[in-house]
């Protein structure tokens, strides 16, 4: 507050961009952001659109289910690490049923049985353990993150079963399909974001930070009353 008054006292202060305390590296982040946007517009989106055109929704859902199933193993691990044992057992049961009856995960039979999909990762576990998000961070190619979630993501990928796939050519193919399928899933959401936002960078950042906070508290964070 004192700074605000000091600012008023000085001339030309109105032109100084006020820093958002959650995003101290905004200048740097915006640089990476515009790089990502360029890659997205010229490479990722066209590939994703072609993918959507070639493959029927039904098949894309199966592809998504396959990756989603593999991820359930570590979603479970993270639930255990957060002390949510019932959820962890739920995730591992999902993996067991979907891998067997669901033919390597392409059918999500577990959901039909009432075992619901959870959303967990190491970033959320760190948050649950009390780590704050730290500064907002845009990762090259991957987009919105924070220092905490970036560290979490590194572990997510380090332990991901996908990285163990061999031969290397198979592993790389799986990576490729995973990214294209994920981007294809987000085409619609991306369009809505584009329409809704005045400043896409800010809108996306705030949505990401709100979303992560909500996920850490499993959908019911302590309510911040807007006044």
């Amino acid at each position, binding site marked *: 507050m004192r700074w605000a008054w000091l600012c008023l006292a000085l001339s030309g202060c109105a032109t100084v961009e006020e820093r*958002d305390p959650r995003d101290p590296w905004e200048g740097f982040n915006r640089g990476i952001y515009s790089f990502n946007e360029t890659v997205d517009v010229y490479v990722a989106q066209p590939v994703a659109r072609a993918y959507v055109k070639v493959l029927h929704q039904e098949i894309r859902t199966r592809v998504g289910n396959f990756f989603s199933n593999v991820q359930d193993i570590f979603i479970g691990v993270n639930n255990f690490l957060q002390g949510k044992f019932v959820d962890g057992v739920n995730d591992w049961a999902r993996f067991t049923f979907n891998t067997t009856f669901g033919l390597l995960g392409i059918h999500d039979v577990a959901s039909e049985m009432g075992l619901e*999909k959870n959303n967990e990762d190491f970033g959320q576990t760190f948050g649950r353990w009390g780590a704050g998000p730290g500064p907002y961070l845009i990762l090259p190619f991957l987009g919105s993150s924070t220092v905490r979630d970036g560290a979490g993501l590194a572990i997510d990928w380090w332990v991901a079963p996908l990285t163990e796939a061999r031969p290397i050519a198979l592993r790389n193919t799986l990576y490729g399909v995973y990214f294209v399928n994920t981007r294809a899933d987000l085409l619609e959401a991306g369009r809505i974001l584009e329409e809704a936002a005045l*400043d896409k960078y800010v809108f996306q950042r705030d949505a990401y930070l709100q979303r992560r906070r909500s996920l850490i508290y499993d959908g019911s964070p302590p309510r911040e009353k807007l006044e």
Partner: protein
Amino acid sequence: MKKFFATLALLAFGVPSLAQDPAPDALVKSVTLEVIDLISKDKEIKSGSRAKLVEVIEAKVLPHFNFTAMTALAMGQNWNKSTPEQKKRLTEEFKTLLVRTYASALAAYSEQKFDFRPLRAKPTDTDVTVNVRVLQPGAQAVTLDYSMEKTANGWKCYDVMVGGVSLVANYRTEFANTVRNSGIDGLIKDLQTKNRSLAKQDKK
């Protein structure tokens, strides 16, 4: 005689319940199901008519929203610094943008199932959250949380949280930044420009 009793029953039970405002969770459910039913039957909407979709939203959904409250929340402290005329124009432009966004989200709807959660509130509460979950195979359910306030004209929604992201809160920084850089009139102008370019897109 049968008819007489039926009429009596209607007078005794039916009419008062019509006069009474529906509970917030019942309201969300009936409006959601009605809109979904309308858009999945309407040929024009199915073939991609944005105008028709917006028409449905304006007729069925808008009456249950308090856009002045939404705009005030998104504006934060700047709301009190606005003149009545500015407030009116801000609300109008913000409403147009939100309706447009809502239409885009609805247009992407494809047969997902809804899970309407029982309301966790006391009957005397005047500010409640209605929780709905959109279920989709292979992915975590998307939560829709409607913040609703009791008014003289029934329950009105003043914020929607999608997957934990409050729509109103998400505009706060954007609005504050724009007002800081170009004033309240600058924000009105930005919103107008945005809405016009979106309207142009729809015509293409």
